[in-house]
């Protein structure tokens, strides 16, 4: 009885093993005969049509709208959140021409791309969602000074109603 049982288990094992192996081969066989499943991107050739997925972290950018206005209040939360000092916020005092009050505004949003690890912490820290990660990944330059970027466009202003 015991022997019969173990023989049955042996044969069962062999059949089960064959079944599972064939399952694996079915999957790879499906991939082989369906070239549409290929994931490889032919990069320099498809440069014009290449679209990176939304979650891809290329570099930090400051969002500007069509009036050249951004949402950065210069609170430096991103600068504090950055683990390796990639972001430097340089503020200036600005006198409002209507009320005559002096307010804080960003002079330069300096971003050192060469130090960035694309950890996304600055984007999480930003209270006004002024910055985001872009999908651009072609960062190669001939001189590393070019990697230090000023993110706010010249002459850009804070979007009204953000500070409140």
């Amino acid at each position, binding site marked *: 009885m015991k022997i019969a049982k173990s023989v049955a288990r042996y044969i069962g094992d*062999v059949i089960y093993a064959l079944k599972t192996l064939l399952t694996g081969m079915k999957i790879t*066989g499906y991939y082989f005969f369906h070239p549409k499943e290929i994931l490889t991107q032919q990069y320099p050739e498809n440069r014009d049509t290449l679209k990176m997925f939304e979650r891809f972290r290329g570099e930090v950018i400051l969002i500007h709208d069509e009036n050249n206005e951004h949402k950065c209040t210069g609170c430096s939360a991103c600068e504090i959140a950055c683990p390796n000092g990639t972001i430097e916020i340089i503020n200036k005092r600005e006198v409002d021409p209507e009320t005559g009050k002096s307010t804080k505004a960003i002079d330069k949003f300096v971003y050192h791309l060469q130090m960035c690890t694309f950890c996304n912490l600055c984007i999480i820290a930003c209270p006004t969602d002024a910055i985001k990660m872009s999908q651009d990944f072609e960062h190669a330059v001939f001189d590393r000074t070019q990697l230090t970027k000023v993110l706010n466009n010249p002459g850009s202003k804070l979007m009204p109603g953000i500070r409140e």
Partner: protein
Amino acid sequence: MKPVFLKFSLYDFSEWIKSIHQWLIELAGPTIGHLLGLALVGTCFLLFTALLGLSVVYIERKVCAFFQQRLGPMRVGPYGTAQTVADIIKLLFKEPTMTKESDKFLFMLAPFIIMIAPFMVLAAIPFAKGLHVMDLNIGLFFILAVSSIGVTGILLAGWSSNNKYSLIGAMRSGAQIVSYELSVALSLLTIVVLTGSLQLSEIVASQADGWWIFKGNFPAIVAFIVFTIASTAETNRGPFDMAEAESEITAGFHTEYSGIKFAFFFLAEYVNLFIVSAVAATVFFGGWMPLHIGNIEFFNNAMDLIPPIVWFFMKIAVIMFLVMWFKWTFPRLRIDQLLTLEWKYLLPISVVNLLLMSFIALKGWHF
């Protein structure tokens, strides 16, 4: 006498080969003519293996890529076809390095021993009607015996490298090949029971009315599966590539080899793959014999239109594809799993299978 090249026929090479032989003897006398003939055959095989290596490496890389949802080589030449040529040129220009305390003579010798085995086996394989270097009456036995010489080269390479990874790889390979040899031989014997001959030309001739995989009932299919698994292990190919498991022992027995000597190991692997597929095609799928079904005249005649050599290479291609398929699907086995598979599963199954086949042959139940 007609000139040599006029006797060429794609369906029967024996006339052509005979006329070349005659021509050589007339040209240079019996002794030198015979030697010239041998040299000619040797050169043909050298060229053949070189071309085979080039094409099979490319095909394997492409097939592997498609199984893994990749494209494979695409840059060198159209669809990467010149990739292997570029690789060979790179290997030729590389420096042949050597470890300090290695056994220099054995280290140099090992790649040649590894290449000798597949070359000797190639001689016994019938490529087409009349295209057969030596038709030994113990052809299958010769193939089994000679193909295991290759392991000597692997052991020598591992031993002489003076590297622990090489030695571990070589020892694993030794254990593996000694074990799997049994299953290979037993699964081939299953068909020999039916043919009653070890001579390869007779094995091919016995399949003129149908291949053994169809005629031999269920045991022939089991024997083919066992043969495919065991011979893959014997050629050190994945998922049984314990001898060169990259993740554990860098590259196993050829860790210390570079340049053209490494290329020899690489080439030997692919020639072995070809040989294993060729033996499987000859024994189970009728060698160069076209697909014949019983005595259906018009079907058999239609199949005869395709030259035997094309049939042979088509069968080899299909079997190679099968071997590549499971190489690139399954993960590598551990050494204990590998030996368990052989001694606890493949060997008992092939022994029972042989018994079953003998019974069928005795009762005359095969077709």
